[in-house]
């Protein structure tokens, strides 16, 4: 196909604003899928994604569309919708020339929309604002258009007003995609350069690589080299998603498609890498980097015998998720386990659920912690991946933590409350922009650790659910941070310690002990809880000893049943670990986190 008949675009939208619905309508109109064959919302396919209503992995689909007698190839590239996967979003956008900015006119612009739209602007994409759900009586398209203009400086007065649900206006959106989004440039006869913007693992075919041909032509059986990793592969099959994988003899400059080789591990392919024909000298496409782990948490099998099973499970998961990292770790309290690195909190939750669901593992998970950096007296820097691993204060000069640039969109009436929460979380005010008479954008620099602690919960409750948030890590900053230790019956439990700002250690210590008190069951003896910095005790709590726990009646007919009952109560909470003589349930290990009932 001639590049001038190709359009590569994505849809930017906040969760639930109608991206999947619009994509489905477009596929229907193109005739690529018959309506009755269509599973609702074709583009999301993992069970987990469906449940959580998010798109974890980018997908792409190629459909033909005829307009005014000319046939076009439309490549719709789906983007993940969460800040944890920003890098993937960036790469997907790099594969496009334009983006449909889809905003639910009954909700207005949300923080995530703004964040992703900025990524699109940075990637130099043509942006087509579209107002969705105008069939709803409470839709307010004019105000929404104004918000788009004010938050993104994008002309939106003639934005298409559509209903993805009824289909009204969808053809107009496609017309605009064809008329306004530029055709890809790139020379099909030049040396091959293709951008890898995604990769998925398939049990039967190995790794399936999503690519955008930037220059040149990729043919079946080509020997290709990944410029970033240096790995060499032979293309066994290439093709397009129509939306099923359909083999094709070649993919030319401007086209989007896939290739399959005998790649066994997702780790062998890096999103953002450039693919070239082996032996040619071409320049790498910009913006490639290794996945950056912002959050770490330790997983320990509840049953120490499951350590190997856990390793196998993590290995299997990392086949299909190259951004997951893991390495063995030991804890005094919890024994042998794995420290895992995640792109963010959502990513962590997804992995946790997959371990439990797909691998049926019972585990203890420590509260997630950000990656800290220490600077030693000689200027040497070192990463600290968990509070337990922080050396003594005499071992370093500075302790630095990651800072996030946080942008929040909220109704104006909540400004005061949100500013209060932000400064309570050590936020530094950056900017305030009024998007419309009723909505405002606030920007703060807030330590990532504070966001993880309970900032998001607080924001949600202070704005009655109307506030949305997006953030981006901007760098590291030294601060007066200390290790808050938790002692259970005078024994330090490394898996419960946290790094906190000195000024908040007291409150934090108290809050953690309160929660532990609720989570740890009563024992035969008093359980004493202490929070401390170094040798200084900041707070104490105690869990009184059990006073009464005895079966009144136990005769021959009851023995087996009563014994099983007691055994169940003992093992009961399957996720319990013994630290010294104290049984600590899984939930207690998350007590270090804020929020109501984490």
């Amino acid at each position, binding site marked *: 196909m001639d590049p001038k008949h190709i359009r590569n675009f994505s849809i930017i939208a906040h969760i639930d604003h109608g991206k999947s619905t619009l994509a489905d309508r477009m596929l229907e109109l193109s005739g690529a899928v018959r309506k009755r064959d269509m599973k609702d919302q074709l583009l999301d396919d993992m069970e987990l994604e469906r449940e959580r209503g998010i798109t974890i992995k980018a997908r792409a689909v190629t459909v033909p569309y005829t307009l005014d007698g000319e046939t076009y190839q439309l490549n719709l590239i789906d983007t993940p919708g969460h800040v944890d996967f920003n890098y993937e979003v960036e790469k997907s956008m790099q594969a496009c020339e334009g983006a449909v900015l889809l905003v639910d006119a009954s909700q207005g612009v949300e923080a995530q929309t703004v964040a992703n739209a900025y990524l699109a602007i940075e990637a130099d994409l043509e942006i087509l604002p579209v107002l969705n759900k105008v069939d709803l009586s409470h839709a307010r398209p004019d105000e929404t258009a104004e918000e788009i203009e004010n938050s993104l400086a994008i002309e939106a007065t003639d934005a298409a007003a559509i209903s993805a649900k009824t289909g009204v206006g969808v053809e107009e959106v496609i017309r605009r995609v064809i008329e306004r989004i530029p055709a890809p440039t790139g020379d099909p006869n030049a040396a091959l350069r293709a951008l890898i913007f995604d990769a998925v693992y398939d049990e039967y075919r190995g790794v399936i690589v999503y690519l955008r041909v930037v220059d040149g032509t990729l043919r079946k059986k080509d020997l290709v080299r990944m410029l970033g990793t240096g790995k060499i592969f032979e293309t066994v099959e290439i093709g397009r998603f129509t939306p099923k994988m359909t083999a094709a003899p070649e993919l030319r400059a401007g086209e989007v498609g896939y290739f399959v080789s005998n790649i066994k591990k997702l780790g062998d392919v890096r999103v953002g890498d450039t693919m070239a024909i082996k032996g040619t000298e071409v320049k790498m496409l910009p913006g490639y980097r290794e996945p950056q782990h912002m959050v770490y948490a330790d997983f320990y099998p509840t049953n120490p015998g499951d350590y190997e099973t856990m390793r196998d499970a993590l290995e299997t998961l990392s086949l299909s998720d190259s951004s997951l990292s893991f390495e063995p770790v030991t804890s005094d309290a919890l024994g042998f386990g794995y420290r895992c690195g995640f792109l963010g909190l959502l990513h962590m939750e997804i992995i946790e659920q997959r371990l439990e669901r797909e691998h049926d593992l019972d585990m203890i998970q420590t509260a997630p912690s950000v990656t800290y950096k220490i600077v030693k007296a000689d200027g040497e820097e070192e990463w600290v991946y968990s509070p337990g691993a922080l050396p003594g204060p005499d071992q370093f000069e500075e302790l630095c933590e990651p800072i996030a640039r946080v942008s929040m969109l909220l109704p104006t009436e909540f400004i005061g409350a949100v500013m209060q929460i932000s400064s309570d979380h050590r936020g530094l005010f950056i900017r305030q922009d009024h998007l419309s008479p009723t909505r405002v954008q606030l920007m703060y620099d807030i330590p990532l650790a504070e966001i993880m602690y309970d900032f998001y919960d607080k924001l949600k409750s202070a704005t009655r659910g109307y506030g949305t948030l997006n953030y981006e890590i901007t760098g590291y900053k030294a601060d007066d941070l200390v290790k808050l230790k938790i002692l259970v019956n005078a024994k330090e439990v490394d898996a419960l310690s946290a790094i906190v700002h000195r000024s908040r250690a007291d409150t934090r210590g108290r809050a953690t002990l309160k929660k532990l008190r609720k989570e740890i069951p009563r024992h035969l003896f008093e359980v004493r809880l202490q929070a401390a910095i170094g040798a200084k005790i900041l707070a104490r709590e105690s869990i009184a000893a059990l006073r009464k726990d005895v079966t009144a009646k136990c005769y021959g*007919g009851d023995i087996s049943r009563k014994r099983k009952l007691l055994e169940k109560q003992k093992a009961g909470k399957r996720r319990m670990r013994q630290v010294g003589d104290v049984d600590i349930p899984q939930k207690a290990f998350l007590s270090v986190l804020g929020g109501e009932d984490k």
Partner: protein
Amino acid sequence: MASPFSTSPKTRPVPPLSRAKAGTPLYVHLPFCAAKCHYCDFFSVPDEDQDVDGMSAAILREAERRAPRSPRTVFFGGGTPSLFTEGQLAHLLDRLDALTGWRASAREVTAECNPESLDEAKARALLRLGVRRVSLGVQSLDDATLARFGRVHTSAQALRAYDAARAAGLDHVNVDMIYAAPGQSPARWESELERVLALEPDHLSAYNLTFEPGTRFHLELQRGSIAGVPEEDELAMLDTTRAACARAGLEPYEISNYAGPGEACEHNVNYWNNGPYVGIGPSAVSKVGHARAGNVRGIASYLARIGADGNAAVWSEELGPVARLGETWWLGLRLARGVEPARARATAGFEGGADRDPALEVVASLERSGHVEREGDRVRLTPAGLPVADAVGRRFLGIGR
């Protein structure tokens, strides 16, 4: 293996345990009551329209195959054995004697009785038929509490039944009581208790009320229409009971059981010593060797199974030696005399010696925390350990894992 919780008639039968040795204690479960008490989770059903003779026949058929010869002790429980008429009792007990020779062999023969069905004539009949000991379900001497419990008798009837047993010449009488009834204060319990002790029973069982799943009380508790008494009150009532019984010459020999000299219930002590026993009748459990098995909980399904092949067992289990050891400790510590480690190992069939005995590590730790103490070659609960006996027991049940 089927679970002991299962009551489904579809449960598959399990092979019966092998025949118990001569002398093994015998339990016979008679599953009918005048009405179902609100706290009770024993298997029993109201006797209205029930075929007592059919049940007797089935029990005898099961006994024919499974009852031990010359049992050391016999216990007729339920249910309410006193609900049977004299004729029904005579038939059942005579035939059972013909099968096992219990009248000659048993040192202790108990029948559970309830006030509404025990008068002097019934008491005399029981005595004549070979029963030596009666356990009378009084439960409370407060009529409002009795009504709440769903009992069908008054406190006056209970006192009359007690007198009837004495008048008939029964020398071994136990009174069953329940404390910590909803709304009961420690003072009120104490006064009920004093009145019971004034009767000079030979034995007293005083149970802290428990809300067992499947009972009406449990349901009401969940709905919030009744509430248990505060923990401190329960503890106070336990203390009161122990003190008052001691004054009355009844020694506490198990968590809920008090006896005058020589009056401890040998049949029950055998359970706490984790000894063998054979149970006959619906829901009855047997322990033979290291295996336990239980009969189906259901009248019709019991009758049907016995009718088919004389076997009503629906679950069985055999624990490994370490688990048996833990179980032996858990049960044995309920007894005031406690557990002798070497005997526990022998009972459990645990082959290692003291140096490999995992229970002793738990003992050492519980000694340090003050929950158990040594007395000669025995280990027993301390006063601090008694009210938390389950938590102590759990430590033993957890050994070896």
